[in-house]
């Protein structure tokens, strides 16, 4: 029997997240959570679209859509009905089969991501022992859907858009995964439920640099502004979904927001303590935190100017990646030093980590990297 390596700031809590004992067992559990996940994603996407359009409106000193239903609440429904009734146009020269399959291949991974995200203790479709690795693996499949859309449209702007998108995704995957590894080191588990259980204090306090790296890289992965190079109308029209209309365009639109919700849910689970919180029921905490993270995404979108494609690549390789590696090394040292778990020491640790964040970001932004230095051809 191998001794279980138990170093870390937090003691590993071995509470097996047994799924609730549904009558009928496995298949009922599977059916129940599949329905819950689909309903959750669709509802959250509606909410996200509402927040994005109205919130962005307020931030830009305008009203936003406010005519459909009370406070414009039915606007996402109206949008959905409009887009579903539109004509489905497929280019003559398109690879019809691949053109049809692409939105499906892009949508399935976005939905599958939610299978391992705990809504409250043990309430998840599959408490995989390799949860976070599953998320990284599954999210990499969606690039294939983007490639298929770009290629099958038989349009050079679609193709260029897809290549841009994939270049960005591949580049930002590295700081993203390295930021995750820091959390995994502290929690001592790859299972998302155990990571949540390990967060007596949210990991954003112990891993502030990791949080910012993950947030930036996550926003870039899903093409949210300031990294939204898909919507470069003057350069590549609308990127890989230029030739999509009607229902299939709606699928890509849905994927965009489902991925944003997924990233928000992963950030909540990894850094913000997941379903944990006082007073309110756990699932409500989870939903509240997810929406708060999404609101922050909308906020950064309206605040920051978008960057050029070469700056996008430079930011990933020259800014985020070195910081992610340094963050990983520092976290590994902290974990190996087995810092005491008691309160004053944890406070010291939090202060130390925030100092490291400030020093590193200042150092890089002052001396080592500036947006617009040098040019990388993509």
């Amino acid at each position, binding site marked *: 029997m*191998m001794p*279980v*390596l138990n170093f870390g700031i937090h003691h590993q809590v071995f509470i097996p997240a047994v799924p609730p004992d549904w009558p009928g067992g496995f298949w009922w559990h599977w059916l129940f959570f599949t329905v819950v996940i689909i309903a959750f994603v669709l509802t959250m996407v509606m909410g996200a679209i509402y927040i994005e359009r109205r919130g962005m409106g307020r931030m830009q000193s305008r009203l936003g859509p406010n005519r459909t239903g009370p406070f414009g609440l039915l606007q996402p429904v109206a949008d959905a009905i409009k887009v579903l009734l539109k004509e489905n146009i497929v280019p003559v020269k398109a*690879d019809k*089969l*691949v053109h049809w399959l692409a939105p499906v291949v892009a949508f399935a991974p976005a939905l599958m991501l939610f299978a391992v995200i705990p809504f409250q203790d043990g309430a998840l479709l599959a408490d*995989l*022992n*390799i949860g976070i*690795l*599953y998320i*990284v*693996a*599954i999210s*990499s*499949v969606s*690039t*294939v859907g983007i*490639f*298929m859309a770009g*290629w099958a449209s038989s349009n050079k702007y679609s*193709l260029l858009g897809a*290549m841009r998108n*994939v270049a960005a995704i*591949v580049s930002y*995957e590295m700081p993203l995964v390295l930021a995750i590894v820091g959390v995994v080191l502290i929690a001592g588990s*790859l299972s998302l439920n155990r990571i949540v259980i390990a967060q007596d204090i949210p990991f954003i306090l112990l891993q502030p640099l990791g949080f910012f790296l993950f947030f930036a890289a996550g926003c870039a992965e899903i093409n949210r502004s300031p990294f939204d190079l898909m919507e470069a109308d003057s350069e590549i029209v609308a990127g890989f979904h230029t030739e999509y209309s009607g229902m299939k365009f709606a699928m890509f639109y849905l994927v965009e927001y489902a991925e944003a919700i997924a990233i928000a849910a992963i950030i909540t689970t990894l850094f913000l303590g997941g379903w944990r919180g006082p007073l309110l029921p756990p699932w409500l905490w989870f939903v509240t935190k997810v929406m708060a993270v999404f609101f922050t995404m909308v906020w950064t979108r309206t605040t920051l100017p978008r960057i050029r494609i070469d700056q996008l690549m430079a930011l990933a390789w020259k800014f985020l990646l070195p910081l992610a590696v340094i963050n990983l090394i520092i976290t590994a040292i902290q974990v190996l030093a087995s810092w005491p778990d008691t309160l004053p020491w944890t406070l010291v640790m939090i202060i130390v980590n925030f100092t490291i964040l400030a020093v590193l970001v200042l150092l890089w932004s002052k001396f080592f990297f500036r947006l617009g230095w040098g040019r990388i051809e993509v």
Partner: protein
Amino acid sequence: MGLAIGFWISASVIIAAALGVVLLRNIFRAALSLILCFLMVAGIYITLSADFLAAVQILVYVGAISVLIILAIMMTREVQRGNLSNKLQLPAFIVALLFLGVLVLTVTNTPWPITDTAPVVPTTTTIASRLFGEGGFILPVEIAAALLLSAILGAIVLAREK
């Protein structure tokens, strides 16, 4: 029972997809077929209770290698006309046939150890201590890492503009 069904579905899709890679005239569709093949190999790993390996299979082969292949296809000139033809069909067929023969011979002649013990749960701890623990494969892991790093640096040096 469920495992057997899973295995046979994965196995037959793997073979169909692999045939598709070779027989499809459209090279992009052939690449997509290859991706399906990789995914289904991950399915086989899952039936073998190797969950970590399955995730790594999807991450590396579907997420990285296939993307490289498709990027290479997109960079190729005149690829829109479908498969580029050359005179290497027959040699390729012979080499592939010889390789298949060697594989079949090896697989049928090796005494594969079969055990009744239940698979280890969780797999990650065991893999980690085998790779990085005492008496594990720490040296090969380090050598592989150094080799990959030097390959990456070499590629950058080769591709860099003067």
